[in-house]
């Protein structure tokens, strides 16, 4: 419930001017919007870093052992300008680590979750603003640690983001298993703590601080996505953190959680044994599988909002959509073994995980059908956010369907640890979530900054990104079907893969194009932040509560207490003349409040 108004906060601002005030307002702020912005800027910068690391990988696969032009002699002078095998392991490890932990999860939960949750539910801030601020600042030790990783010989952790022991648990097992791996583990722990703090905050805020009239089934799908994601984070992260500590202990204290008896690696005997390498895999994937749903559910929610707005039509099947999100999350806790079908786990367990994994395709399919139902019969406006959101649907179909191949365990025997898997998760994470994130940035930019991003440039950004990403990632399916393995610095020596280099070169060129295209986005973003055309509260004529606040909202968000009368998707409602019907608009006199045709 809002107890402060914008006036009080304006007074506070006017009285400031000192450095201390600047620091508390913009640096160590407890305002959820500022924190959301901090997350947004940090993650976008790390997106660039992660993208460049990916280009390193693609360079090596296209032209193995060739020196990179310009950067090669600068970075790899000891190797004659080429990427060394150890550095290649660092490249793919850090690319994944940065993208997963510093980009996708924080941008969904940290940037958009923080910014949108109070605004969409009609609250003036999060339930625990200080905890919220800590959740952002806990990311900084992680940023620093992982950043240091890059500069500490041998220049980064290189045991895969999955960090399987004994490779990662024994210092002697790999050059990347020296200090860099320890620092990496500590960085991951900080990220985990940050997410756990955030998730507690989101759950409490959504349950406790909704505006009057905002029942759970009147929440926008974005909030449902964020809410379920917060539950996933809260329950799954502790397992990863515990596993991380266990691995740290194996490395530093000589315990043997993951090291079997009498293990000798590189002529060094492990300090102790009696452990089981598969234990790490179970613990790791128990978190990391829900993590992948953490990385898509908020995006699905945001896409529902955007599609509904630009179809001028309610979301088709709101309750089934909510149940589908919950189903995906619930089932997500019992499928982790599908990453381990050929790991040495009991094959009977493999069968049980297979059945659960097959079932998870069902709620995802239901969601796709409902999105199709949403646009059917609507009035579609192909603005940039709409384009990105529709492409999310199309690309998610591809990514989701390719997952079925992996769910089929006999097929997984062949495609496990090949580029088929890489194709699948890049389709859902990049062609899916990242596209949704772009769309969300274009959509909520006016609310964040009071200005519009350029729509034509946005469409160019969309088209080029779409073409290049398909050029880069589609062929990974073909490579994977060939058996082309992951994480191989030079696969062309093998007879089976020797003729696949041209395809890889084509993919690299597309990848370079894709990263170059993001310059358009960056330019648009930065320019529009300062010089874009100003807009009012609701440039998209959308229904959500956030669009009733000023653009950008002041401290305390709303200049009046919102009261909610209906769900968030009453576009094209017959009750009013306008083609949208905001949640907090009182119904016309001849209609009973709360008795709208939406039925909830």
């Amino acid at each position, binding site marked *: 419930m809002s107890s402060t108004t914008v006036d009080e906060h304006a007074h506070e601002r006017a009285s400031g001017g000192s450095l201390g005030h600047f620091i508390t307002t913009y640096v160590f702020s407890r305002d959820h919007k500022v924190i959301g912005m901090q997350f947004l800027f940090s993650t976008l910068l790390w997106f660039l870093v992660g993208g460049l690391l990916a280009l390193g990988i693609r360079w090596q696969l296209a032209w193995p052992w060739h020196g990179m032009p310009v950067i090669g002699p600068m970075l790899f002078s*000891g*190797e004659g300008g080429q990427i*060394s095998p*150890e550095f290649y392991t660092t490249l793919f490890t850090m690319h994944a680590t940065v993208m997963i932990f510093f980009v996708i999860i924080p941008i969904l939960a940290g940037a958009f979750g923080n910014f949108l949750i109070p605004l969409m539910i009609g609250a003036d801030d999060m339930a625990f603003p200080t905890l919220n601020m800590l959740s952002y600042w806990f990311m900084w030790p992680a940023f620093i640690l992982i950043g240091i990783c890059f500069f500490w*010989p041998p220049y980064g952790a290189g045991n895969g983001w999955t960090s399987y022991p004994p490779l990662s648990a024994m210092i*002697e097992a*790999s*050059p990347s298993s020296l200090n860099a791996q320890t620092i990496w583990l500590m960085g991951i722990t900080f990220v985990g703590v940050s997410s756990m703090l955030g998730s507690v905050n989101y759950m409490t805020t959504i349950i406790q601080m909704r505006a009057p009239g905002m029942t759970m089934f009147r929440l926008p799908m974005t909030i449902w996505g964020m809410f379920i994601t917060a539950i996933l984070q809260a329950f799954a992260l502790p397992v990863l953190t515990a596993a991380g500590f266990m691995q740290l202990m194996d490395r530093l204290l000589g315990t043997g959680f993951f090291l*079997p*008896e*009498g293990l000798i690696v*590189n*002529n*060094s005997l492990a300090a102790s044994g009696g452990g089981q390498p598969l234990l790490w895999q179970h613990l790791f994937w128990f978190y990391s599988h829900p993590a992948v749903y953490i990385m898509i559910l908020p995006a699905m929610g945001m896409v529902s909002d955007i599609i509904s707005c630009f179809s001028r039509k309610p979301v088709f099947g709101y309750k089934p959509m909510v149940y589908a999100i919950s189903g995906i999350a619930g089932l997500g806790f019992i499928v982790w073994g599908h990453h381990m079908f050929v790991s*040495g786990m*009991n*094959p009977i367990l493999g069968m049980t995980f297979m059945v659960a994994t097959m079932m998870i395709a069902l709620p995802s399919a239901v969601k796709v059908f409902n999105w199709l139902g949403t646009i059917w019969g609507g009035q579609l406006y192909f603005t940039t956010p709409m384009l990105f959101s529709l492409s999310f649907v199309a690309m998610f179909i591809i990514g989701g369907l390719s997952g079925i191949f992996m769910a089929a365990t006999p097929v997984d025997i062949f495609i496990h640890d090949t580029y088929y898997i890489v194709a699948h998760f890049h389709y859902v994470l990049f062609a899916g979530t990242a596209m949704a994130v772009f769309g969300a940035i274009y959509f909520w930019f006016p609310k964040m900054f009071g200005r519009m991003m350029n729509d034509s440039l946005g469409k160019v950004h969309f088209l080029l990104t779409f073409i290049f990403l398909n050029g880069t990632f589609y062929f990974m399916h073909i490579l994977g079907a060939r058996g082309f393995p992951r994480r191989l610095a030079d696969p062309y020596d093998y007879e089976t893969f020797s003729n696949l280099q041209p395809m890889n070169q084509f993919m690299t060129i597309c990848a370079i194009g894709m990263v170059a295209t993001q310059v358009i986005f960056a330019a648009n973003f930065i320019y529009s932040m300062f010089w874009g055309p100003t807009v009012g509260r609701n440039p998209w004529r959308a229904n959500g509560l956030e669009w009733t606040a000023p653009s950008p909202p002041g401290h305390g968000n709303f200049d009046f207490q919102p009261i909610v009368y209906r769900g968030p998707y009453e576009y094209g409602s017959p009750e009013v003349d306008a083609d949208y019907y905001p949640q907090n608009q009182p119904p016309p006199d001849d209609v009973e409040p709360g008795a709208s045709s939406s039925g909830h």
Partner: protein
Amino acid sequence: MTGDGAGPTASFLNPYPRDYRMGVFKFKSTPKGGKPTYDDLKHILTDGIPDTAMPSFKVLPENEIDALIHYVRYLSIRGEAERSLVFYVTAELDPDEPMLDLAAAQETRAEQAAAIRDYVTEVVQKWLVADSQATPIAAPDPDRDLAASIRHGRDLFYGPIANCIKCHGESALGDGQTTDYDDWTKELEPTNKEALQAYLGLGSFVLKPRNIHPRDLRRGIYRGGRRPIDLYRRVHNGIDGTPMPAALIKPDGAPPETKGLTEQDLWALVDYVRSLPYESISRPPVIEEAYQRERL
């Protein structure tokens, strides 16, 4: 790249990669001081060296293996020639005297070049004769009583002539002595504190000196190869560059009180060593049980 055994990954490997520049190779068919033959190098390249990071290149085509053998020889010749020239310069020449003065008269230059060529030729010559220096090996009697031979070998192993247990330990686990160094490390004077500090002070990239460990003979892993002729060679010729000595050979027909080992003795030792990994104490039950997680 220079064949100095200190490539980018070297500091991480255990044991360190070979430094070719001393021109010393461990696993060959020639006696100590001799160079490996073409076949010796080929054997190492195709089979690798078990228990080390040296991989097997068997899947490479013949011509590539041949090219590699020639390149290894080249690196060794170059390295050894450079080293001998360094000794030449420091020992024979005055501090200001250049090895090859390009500004000097034609005659002087020719003299200097000839001196250099002599040193290099000396190095190359050793390689040229290597193939003919290989130790011939006569097979043992195939009908010999293997158990008796093994018992005889055991006696020799523990006996005063061969004295294997001094380094390989009383249980042949390689724990007889652990404080020695191989020749490549001895050059760095690791026991001399000042020299060691000076060396380590060159930078974090230098390879820290490590002790050399006698082989644990109960593991059944033989770095130079597991064929009987390989083991025979190790015992007969020792291992160049390491404290493993060549055997004191008692020629056939020598008076009985001559000290040394006959060919039969050597084969007995080889039989004994080959039997060690299969002795019951080499395979205590607990190691087998470590593999109790059997899938079907």
